[in-house]
């Protein structure tokens, strides 16, 4: 028995209506695959948007972020396809702290809570916007423990250019202020989410 999956049904609609929305084809497809009626309608509408809506301009920071996610996705899929390839798994380890946390089932909030940090401090770490030398060793140990990876791997992730800076083509004099790394203690003091007690604990590390 042929199993029908959603993507095959959507492909069938797209192939039957190659020039755009086709009410007749859609109705026939919905009659045939009633279980996918809503998906077919939304696919038809989304196809119109893909075809006619203007492309969104991407900032340098976005380009860099999506490039990074894309590389990580590539490495993860290659690892799935060839689990014995050690070099891929090693590279895979730290393309992103929050993605590594996600693999452990933690979203940003849960990851921050596990580290005893705020979400915005996690964001600073993720984007490498903190001066590496000012990050307390105890924080690095904690990240290493939560992500179950070595401190060396965490150190080498954090001790790189801020995310968004590498590969950007702007001149040094034009570098946006937001890309300058911040002192860890200053970031803690300015944090809007941490309580005074939590801040004090972090500042004493």
């Amino acid at each position, binding site marked *: 028995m*042929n199993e029908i999956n*959603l*993507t*095959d049904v*959507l*492909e*069938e609609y*797209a*192939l039957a209506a*190659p020039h*755009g*929305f*086709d*009410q007749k084809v*859609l*109705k026939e497809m919905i009659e045939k695959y009633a279980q996918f009626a*809503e*998906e077919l*309608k*939304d*696919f*038809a*509408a*989304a*196809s*119109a*948007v*893909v*075809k*006619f*809506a*203007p*492309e*969104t301009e*991407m900032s340098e920071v976005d*380009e860099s972020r*999506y*490039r990074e*996610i*894309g*590389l*990580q*996705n*590539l490495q*993860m*899929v*290659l690892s*799935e*396809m060839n689990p014995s390839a050690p070099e891929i798994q090693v590279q895979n380890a730290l393309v992103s702290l*929050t*993605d590594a946390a*996600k693999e452990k089932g933690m*979203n*940003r909030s849960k990851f921050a809570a596990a580290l005893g940090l705020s979400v915005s401090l996690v964001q600073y770490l993720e984007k490498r916007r903190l001066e590496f030398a000012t990050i307390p060793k105890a924080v690095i140990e904690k990240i290493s423990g939560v992500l179950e990876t070595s401190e060396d791997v965490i150190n080498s992730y954090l001790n790189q250019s801020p995310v968004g800076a590498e590969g950007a083509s702007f001149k040094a004099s034009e570098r946006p202020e937001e890309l300058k790394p911040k002192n860890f203690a200053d970031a803690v003091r300015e944090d809007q989410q941490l309580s005074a007690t939590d801040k004090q604990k972090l500042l004493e590390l």
Partner: protein
Amino acid sequence: MTKARDADSTRIKSLTKKTRQGETYIRRADAELQIEKILTLEKQQILEMLGSNKWRDEADYLLDETLVYLSREARINGDDEIFNEIYEELNRRIWKLLLKFRRNFGANQTDFEDFGQKTEMAILRKLLNTDSDAADFAQVQFGSFVISEAKGVNKQNLIAVSRDQKLFETAREDDETGDEKLENISLTNELSAESKMIFSEGIKKLSPDQQMVAAMLLDGFQIESKDENEMTISRHLGVSSRTIRNWVKEMRALLTEYKEETNR
């Protein structure tokens, strides 16, 4: 389905996937011609083309479908240099497509990135599997291929009106009568060739909700229909037809202004 490797690397390989009706998938003629042309080039020339950053409407712009073909050939031939160059560009194009649905995730960038990541991984699982024909559709209609994978990972509608807009408009427009609802039936027919041209040229001037409606109108959707089984813009968005008509009026006004500006 396993594909035999072609001994002649300059000959384009046919697609092998078949529709449920038994017809083999075929590429568009422009993609087929472009692939054939590229297969005659030296590696260095291909790398130069990949690095040229041409715009979509420029000559020699590498079609998405061509990139998919070349990436799979690079994988088969173990050419990491070409594969990495192509992947960087394909990745950028995938995210540009997905960004058209960014508004559905509101201020939550993380949710959008999760959606993008799952979609891209589903795409890659097919693209990288060179022993399978699962990615043949990506060489036929790449945009539709990406959306079909996005639909596979995202159960919610990709096309929806922003929540605030919907609440506001529903409160204002719920008193529409049956007759009023049907007034618009002829509206899409009113979209003359000139109006369509103005809509497609000026669409970037519109708000995201308006862009969505304009895109659907341009693709041939009706605002409303007497036939309850027909898909319409009003039904899919869950917004009254009067609201849509109001948006269309606003769009027309904006686009007339835009047209006047560009004519000056």
